[in-house]
C-alpha cells in the first residue's frame, strides 16, 4: 500500500484583471510535481521563498484546490473524494502552521483550542475531554493548568507546542509541518525540532517537513525534494543531496548553509566561489530557454536530478 503519493500535481492561481475581472493569466505555483512518502519517514521539501512549498502542503491537506494531478493517500485519491468522504481523512492528515501567532484564535482558551478537533470527531464528556487535552498539553511540555490560559500568555515556542498538541489530538498519521520553526528564536528552534522528532517515534508519525533552510532539513529529514519555481530540481536521500548534489541550484543552496566550525570557513568560501562560477558558466546546462528546469531523471536508486 502506498502511504502518500503525489502524481503530477499542478496548482495554478488565476490572475484576474481587465473588465469583469476576467482570468488573464495564471501563477503556476506548483507545476507538475510527483513524489512519494513512506510511512514513518520525514520528507523534506526545500526551496527559496515563493517556490510553491506552502501551496503543495495546502493542497495535500485540502486547503487549496489542485488544478490537476492526483494525491493518493492510502490508495485513495483525495482530489476525487466528495466533501463528506474527505471528512474521514481529516483525522489522518494534520498541519502545523508557520506562524504561531495567527494560527491560534486569540479569543479562545487553550482548552477550547486543543479540544476543537475532539469536539468535531468524538463525543466526550467534559471531564474526559479536559483529561485528554491535558494529556496532550503535558506531552508537549506545558503544565496542565495552562489549559485555562489564553494564547497571548505564551511565548512563540510555547504557542507552537500548543499548535502541535492540537494537531496530535486526533492521532493523525501524516503531519504537514510548514516552516514550523521559522518564526521562532534560533535558541528555541532546536528545542521544538528535537521535540518533534521525539513525538514522531512515540506517535508513529510521518512528516512532510517544509522549510527554506537546508540546515534544518538536514537535521530532520530522511529524504529531500528540492523545489524551484513550482518544480522539482532534485530529489534523493538526505545523504545523496548533501554529499553528492548534482543540480546547480541544489549546490547553491548547500553552499549557503552557514558552517559554525571556523576551521571549515576557508573551505566554504572556496566552495561558494566555485559554485557561483559554475552557475554563471553553465546556466544553459541546467535551465531551458524559458528559465525552467528539465524533467527529473533517475541517476541512482534513490537519487533523481532535473537534467536534459
Amino acid at each position: 500500500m502506498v502511504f502518500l503519493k503525489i502524481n503530477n500535481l499542478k496548482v495554478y492561481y488565476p490572475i484576474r484583471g481587465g473588465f469583469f475581472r476576467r482570468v488573464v493569466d495564471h501563477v503556476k505555483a506548483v507545476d507538475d510535481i510527483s513524489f512519494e512518502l513512506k510511512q514513518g519517514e520525514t520528507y523534506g521539501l526545500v526551496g527559496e521563498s515563493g517556490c510553491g512549498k506552502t501551496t503543495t502542503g495546502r493542497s495535500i491537506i485540502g486547503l487549496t484546490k489542485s488544478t490537476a494531478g492526483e494525491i493518493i493517500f492510502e490508495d485513495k485519491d483525495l482530489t476525487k473524494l466528495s466533501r463528506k468522504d474527505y471528512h474521514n481523512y481529516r483525522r489522518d492528515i494534520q498541519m502545523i502552521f508557520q506562524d504561531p501567532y495567527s494560527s491560534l484564535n486569540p479569543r479562545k482558551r487553550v482548552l477550547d483550542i486543543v479540544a476543537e478537533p475532539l469536539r468535531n470527531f468524538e463525543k466526550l464528556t467534559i471531564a474526559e475531554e479536559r483529561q485528554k487535552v491535558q494529556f496532550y498539553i503535558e506531552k508537549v511540555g506545558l503544565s496542565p493548568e495552562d489549559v485555562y490560559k489564553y494564547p497571548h500568555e505564551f511565548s512563540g515556542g510555547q504557542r507552537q507546542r500548543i499548535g502541535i498538541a492540537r494537531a496530535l489530538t486526533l492521532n493523525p498519521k501524516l503531519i504537514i509541518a510548514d516552516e514550523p520553526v521559522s518564526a521562532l528564536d534560533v535558541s528555541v528552534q532546536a528545542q521544538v525540532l528535537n521535540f518533534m522528532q521525539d513525538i514522531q517515534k512515540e506517535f508513529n508519525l510521518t512528516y512532510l517537513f517544509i522549510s527554506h533552510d537546508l540546515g534544518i532539513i538536514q537535521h530532520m529529514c530522511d529524504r529531500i525534494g528540492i523545489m524551484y519555481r513550482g518544480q522539482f530540481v532534485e530529489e534523493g536521500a538526505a545523504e545523496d543531496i548533501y554529499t553528492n548534489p548534482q543540480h546547480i541550484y541544489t549546490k547553491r543552496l548547500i553552499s549557503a548553509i552557514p558552517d559554525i566550525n571556523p576551521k571549515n570557513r576557508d573551505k566554504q568560501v572556496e566552495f561558494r566561489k566555485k559554485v557561483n562560477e559554475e552557475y554563471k558558466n553553465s546556466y544553459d546546462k541546467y535551465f531551458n530557454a524559458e528559465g525552467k528546469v528539465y524533467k527529473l531523471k533517475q541517476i541512482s536508486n534513490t537519487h533523481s536530478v532535473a537534467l536534459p
Partner: protein
Amino acid sequence: MKAEIVQTNNNFNIKKSKSSGAFSVMWREILKDKLALASLFILGLLLITVYGATLFINQDKLVTVDLLSIYSPPSADHLLGTDYGGRDILGQLLIGAKNSFTIGFFITLIAGIIGLTVGITAGYFGGKVDNFMMRIVDFVMILPSLMLIIVFVTIAPKYNVYTFIFIMSIFLWTGKARLIRSKTLAERELDYVNASKTLGTPDWKIIIREVLPNLSSIIIVNLTLNLAGNIGIESGLTYLGFGLPETTPSLGTLVSYATNPDILQNKWWIWLPASFLILVMMLCINFIGQALRRAADARQRLG
C-alpha cells in the same frame, strides 16, 4: 513578608489580566475615560427616567386636545408648558424620547443583524457568493433611499413605529455589510481559520465561533456610533414632515413645531427641551462610542 505581598498582588494581576475578552477591555476603557463614563451615567439615568416615567403616563389623555390651556408657558400644572392643542410638553417629551430611542435602537439592531449576516457570509466564502451578495448591496445602495422612504410614508396605509423601523432598516444595512465583509476578508486569511478547517470544523461553526468573536469589538463600536445617527434620522425625517404622525409623539415632532416662526421665537418651551435632549443623547452615545473605538484598537487604548 513584603515580597510575599507583592507576589500575591502580582498573581492577582495576572489572573485579572486574563480577562482580555472584548467586553472587559471595553469596560476598562470606559472606566479610564471620564467623559465616556459620565456619558454612560447620564445616558443610563436618562433612559431609566424616560422608560420608567412613560409607564405612568396615559398616552390617550396626553394627546387629547385641551382648548383651555393652549400654549401655556411652564407652570406648576404643566412643568414644560403646553402646545397649540393644550397638550403637556413634558409628557410628550418623555414619550417622544422613548419612541425616538426605541426606533433608533431597533433600526440599528435590525440593520446590524442583516448587514452582519450578509457581510460575514460574503467575506468568509468569497468568490461567487461574495460577488452575488455584493451586487445586491450595490443595488440597494444606489436606490434613492430618501425618495423611496418619503413615497412609502405617503402611501403606507398604517404608518406607525413598526413600519417606520422596517422601512428604515431596509436601507441602512448596506454600509455595515460592506464594513463587516472587508474585515472578514482579512480575518479569513489568518491561519487560525485555516487550522479550524483542517481540524474538520464546519464552515458555519467557524463563522460563528471563530471569526465572529474576533470581529465583536468592531461590530459593537460600529453599532454604537450608528445608534446616535439613527436617533437623529428619525428626528430629521419628522422635522421635514415625513416622520411619525402627531398621534405618536417623538422628539422629531416636538422639534418640528419650530418650523412656525412664532413658536421658534416666543414659545421656546415647546422645541428647546426636545432639541436639547437629542443633543445630549447623541453626544453621550458618541462619547461612549469613541471610547469603545479606542478599546477596539490596542494602539489607542488609554488603559
